[in-house]
């Protein structure tokens, strides 16, 4: 059975046991189910399976995230990325769409161009816009020596234009220097970015060189990194050459290849994998908002700056202001004289078209405006200056009454709330006021005059009235008017005379009444009048009487110092003075003098050359009529008198000088021999009287040449025809020669210190009457003098005399024979003085 059973179902039994075993062993079962599960799940009903799995999967995911979130992220990454990308893409698409929408109506040239491009490429218009707005290109790269600013190397992109790169390089470094200096920047730093319109200059500073890139368009930030890298590499490779750069760039030529990499940088060739779209989108959103915020913030700032500027203007009150939807509103009050708010806009960069202002005019009470208005309305004359002093308006200067009253009216009007208008410092210069001023000056001048008392004075209807007392000896009030500019015609004075008891007036009166003598001096000492000196007793009596009269109220008159003196005594004194004066005179010897019965007698000796005793009387107060003098002449031996006498008697030539040395008379110089012998004779005479005349130093004048000339002159004769007083023409050469000789002689004599004179003696023959001959001879001499004078001989040197027939040259009888008398002539003699 067993066997049969074995035979019949043995295979099934073993199959069953394998299955039972399979079910019992979980591992085996799991393996078994695992192999069918996918299929089973696939065949299972979807809904049921999902429902069955959901909680399990949820729990499983939850646990996995709790344990390590990364795992799941890693797992899901490939799933999410496309998803996110897709969603961002959609978002951007939407943005583009709306951008598209907003750009649709813009008809700019670019807009049209880009629209065409979008149509051509099939891209959305917005994409094209974005694309273009991110274009940039590095056009130039400069490598600049840091210390000197000299250019090391420079590369340019194709088609890029530029000025002289050497100049640009220097200027850039000058700008850097300037910025560093001006803003006190640190060595290392400098300007890294400069923007000129479309161009940006980025500068990257290295230890020895600076790399400046000129970029057109909108470069991405990380371009900085790229440029910095290039600069680093250059510094690595060429550090030696850079450090010792001295303007010679030949060693650094290969740097250009490095720089070239920078220039090639532009939008199209930038990193391919870079998610341009995303960046673009973000930028697209951020930039406009940023710009918008910035612009509106900036224009708000500018507006606020403008508002505060307006508000700070004197004469402008800002009542309200607001900025709404890019429009600006401002309202308030302004003085017409204040600055124009519109014109204040210039320079603020606030667009005037967006400003809506509403200004009401008002009159500002700020002093400076009031000042302006007052200046306009009062039109002050040039002589008045208006100014603001501590919130008050002060007028200073001179003006006429009408202006002042207008100013006063204005001041009153102002007083309600406005600043004070002070016109007290304006002087009234209208004619009346001026005249009144002058009058007052005159009155006060009178008041200070001694001997004048002003009792009252007033001005009425342009006329001046004054009344008071005056001493007759005081200054005349009328004459004091001169120079005061007061019109005398308008002055009405009434003066009562009185006698002033002021000492000086009393003095004047005393002087007038007492006729004090010259020997008495009146003066004021401590309010007393004091007389001093000498006077005859009659005068003293009169003075005493006057003093007594004065004592009632007036100043004291003190005559105690006047000495009593009789006229006789005084005259005697004067006489003695005269006598002593005479005695002191050289050349006067007083022998006797006496005074008897009012007469004066004097006798003595006087040298004729001494002073005249009579003349000495003058000034001595001695009456000449009472002086009786007796003077004997004598020759004083006083050297002074001797010299005088010698000068008179010897008439020394100019070349000789007489002087007195220690009581001796010394004669020095040159003189003609004749004169010297005369001087020697005088010396001998004088020595007998004990006076020394020293002539030893006289030298003889050399007159040899003169003598020769004198000879020639003295032998010359001018001849005349009978009865004629004018010489014939044949005498002309003789006259010419004679004139020359005379001049020469006179000149030489003058040089020798003597004066030469020429005596022209006219002669006649014996025919005719003697008287006629005398006059003919004189006339001939006169004619010759005239002819010589005509030839240049000084007339004062020519003396004339007529000798008639008395000094014939030859005995007359011989001439009668020839009938041609040599006696009809003029002869010449020379005199030396």
């Amino acid at each position, binding site marked *: 059975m067993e066997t049969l059973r074995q035979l019949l179902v043995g295979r099934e039994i073993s199959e069953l046991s394998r299955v039972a075993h399979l079910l019992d062993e979980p591992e085996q079962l799991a393996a078994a189910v695992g192999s069918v599960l996918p299929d089973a799940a696939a065949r299972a009903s979807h809904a049921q399976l999902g429902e069955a799995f959901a909680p399990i999967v949820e729990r499983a995911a939850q646990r996995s995230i709790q344990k390590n979130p990364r795992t799941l992220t890693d797992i899901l990454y490939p799933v999410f990325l496309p998803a996110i990308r897709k969603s961002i893409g959609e978002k951007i698409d939407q943005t583009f769409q709306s951008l598209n929408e907003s750009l649709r109506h813009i008809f700019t040239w670019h807009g049209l161009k880009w629209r065409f491009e979008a149509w051509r490429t099939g891209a959305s218009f917005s994409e094209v816009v974005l694309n273009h707005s991110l274009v940039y290109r590095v056009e130039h790269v400069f490598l600049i*020596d*840091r*210390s*000197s*600013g*000299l*250019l090391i190397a420079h590369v340019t992109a194709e088609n890029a234009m530029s000025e*002289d790169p*050497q*100049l640009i390089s*220097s*200027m850039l470094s*000058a700008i850097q*220097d*300037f910025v*560093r*200096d001006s803003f006190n920047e640190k060595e290392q730093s400098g300007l890294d970015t400069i923007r000129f319109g479309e161009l940006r200059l980025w500068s990257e500073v290295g230890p020895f060189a600076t790399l400046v890139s000129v970029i057109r368009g909108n470069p991405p930030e990380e371009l900085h990194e790229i440029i910095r890298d290039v600069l680093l590499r250059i510094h690595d490779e060429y550090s030696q050459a850079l450090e010792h750069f*001295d*303007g*010679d*760039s*030949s060693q650094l030529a290969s740097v250009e290849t490095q720089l070239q990499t920078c220039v090639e940088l532009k939008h199209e060739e930038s990193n391919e994998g870079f998610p341009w779209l995303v960046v673009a989108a973000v930028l697209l959103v951020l930039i406009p908002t940023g710009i918008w915020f910035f612009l509106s913030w900036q224009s708000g700032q500018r507006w606020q700056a403008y508002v505060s500027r307006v508000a700070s203007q004197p004469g402008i009150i800002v009542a309200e202001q607001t900025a709404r939807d890019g429009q600006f509103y401002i309202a308030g009050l302004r003085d017409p004289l204040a600055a124009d708010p519109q014109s204040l806009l210039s320079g603020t960069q606030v667009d005037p078209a967006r400003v809506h202002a509403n200004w009401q005019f008002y009159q500002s009470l700020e002093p400076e405006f009031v000042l302006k208005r007052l200046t306009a309305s009062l039109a002050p004359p040039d002589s008045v200056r208006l100014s603001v002093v501590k919130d008050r308006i002060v007028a200073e200067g001179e003006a006429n009454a009408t202006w002042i009253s207008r100013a006063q009216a204005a001041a009153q009007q102002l007083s309600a709330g406005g600043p004070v208008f002070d016109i007290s410092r304006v002087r009234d210069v209208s004619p009346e006021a001026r005249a009144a001023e002058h009058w007052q000056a005159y009155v006060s001048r009178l008041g200070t005059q001694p001997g004048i008392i002003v009792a009252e004075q007033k001005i009425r209807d342009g006329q001046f009235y004054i009344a008071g007392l005056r001493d007759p000896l005081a200054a005349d009030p009328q004459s004091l008017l001169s120079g005061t500019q007061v019109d005398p015609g308008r002055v009405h004075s009434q003066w009562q005379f009185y006698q002033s008891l002021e000492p000086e007036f009393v003095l004047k009166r005393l002087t007038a009444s007492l006729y004090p003598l010259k020997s008495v001096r009146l003066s004021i000492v401590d309010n007393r009048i004091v007389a001093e000196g000498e006077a005859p007793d009659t005068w003293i009596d009169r003075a005493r009487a006057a003093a007594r009269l004065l004592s009632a109220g007036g100043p004291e008159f003190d005559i105690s110092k006047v000495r009593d003196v009789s006229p006789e005594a005084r005259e005697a004194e004067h006489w003695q003075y005269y006598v002593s004066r005479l005695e002191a005179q050289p050349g006067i010897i007083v022998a006797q003098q006496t005074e008897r019965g009012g007469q004066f007698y004097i006798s003595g000796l006087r040298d004729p050359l001494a002073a005249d005793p009579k003349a000495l009387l003058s000034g001595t107060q001695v009456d000449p009529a009472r002086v009786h003098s007796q003077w004997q002449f004598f020759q004083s031996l006083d050297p002074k008198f001797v010299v005088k006498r010698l000068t008179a008697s010897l008439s020394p030539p100019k070349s000789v000088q007489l002087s007195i040395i220690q009581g001796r008379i010394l004669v020095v110089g040159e003189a003609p021999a004749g004169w010297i012998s005369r001087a020697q004779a005088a010396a001998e005479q004088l020595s007998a009287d004990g006076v020394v005349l020293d002539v030893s130093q006289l030298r003889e004048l050399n007159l040899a040449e003169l003598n020769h000339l004198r000879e020639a002159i003295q032998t010359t004769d001018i001849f005349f025809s009978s009865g004629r007083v004018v010489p014939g023409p044949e005498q002309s050469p003789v006259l010419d020669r004679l004139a020359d000789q005379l001049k020469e002689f006179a000149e030489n004599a003058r040089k020798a210190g003597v004066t030469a004179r020429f005596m022209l003696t006219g002669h006649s023959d014996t025919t005719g009457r003697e008287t006629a001959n005398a006059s003919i001879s004189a006339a001939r001499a006169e004619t010759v003098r005239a002819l010589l004078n005509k030839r240049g001989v000084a007339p004062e040197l020519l003396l004339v005399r007529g000798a008639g027939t008395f000094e014939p040259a030859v005995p007359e009888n011989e001439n009668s024979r020839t009938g041609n008398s040599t006696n009809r002539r003029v002869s010449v003699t020379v005199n030396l003085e």
Partner: protein
Amino acid sequence: MLQKKICMLGGFAVGKTSLVRRFVQSIFSETYLTTVGVKIDKKSVAFPDKTVDLILWDLAGEDDIGSFRVSYVRGATGLVLVVDGTRPATLAVALTLRERVEAEFGAMPFVLLFNKSDLADRWAIPDGEIDELRQLGWQIYLTSALSGAYVEDAFRQLASMVAK
């Protein structure tokens, strides 16, 4: 390419800008526009063996040494000291500026120009004084930006000095 930075130094209105203009552009103008900051010009000077590009930094003239921006001179290899021959005081200014620069950056080649030599009637520098400076071995020129006299010579001289 050989370049050298040259600085124009001197007092106010001595003619620095005019000299540069005469040298670079061969023109002269009477009108006086004071230089603010610095003005840069370039001129190549050719020698038989080489050519030097002079980068001329025309600095604002300062009579007041205190306000002189010495940093502009950094990296310069030569100086053009300019004196106005009609104003003796500008000589002292030029010499002081040079001292200041030397103190900061060390000695460097220079030429000394007594400018405005055309204004002979207002000339105020005695010959003796110039001779004394020449005794020191200095390169001195009596230039005129107006007539152009010695301007070229002076710059060429400096160029040859800095190109060595």
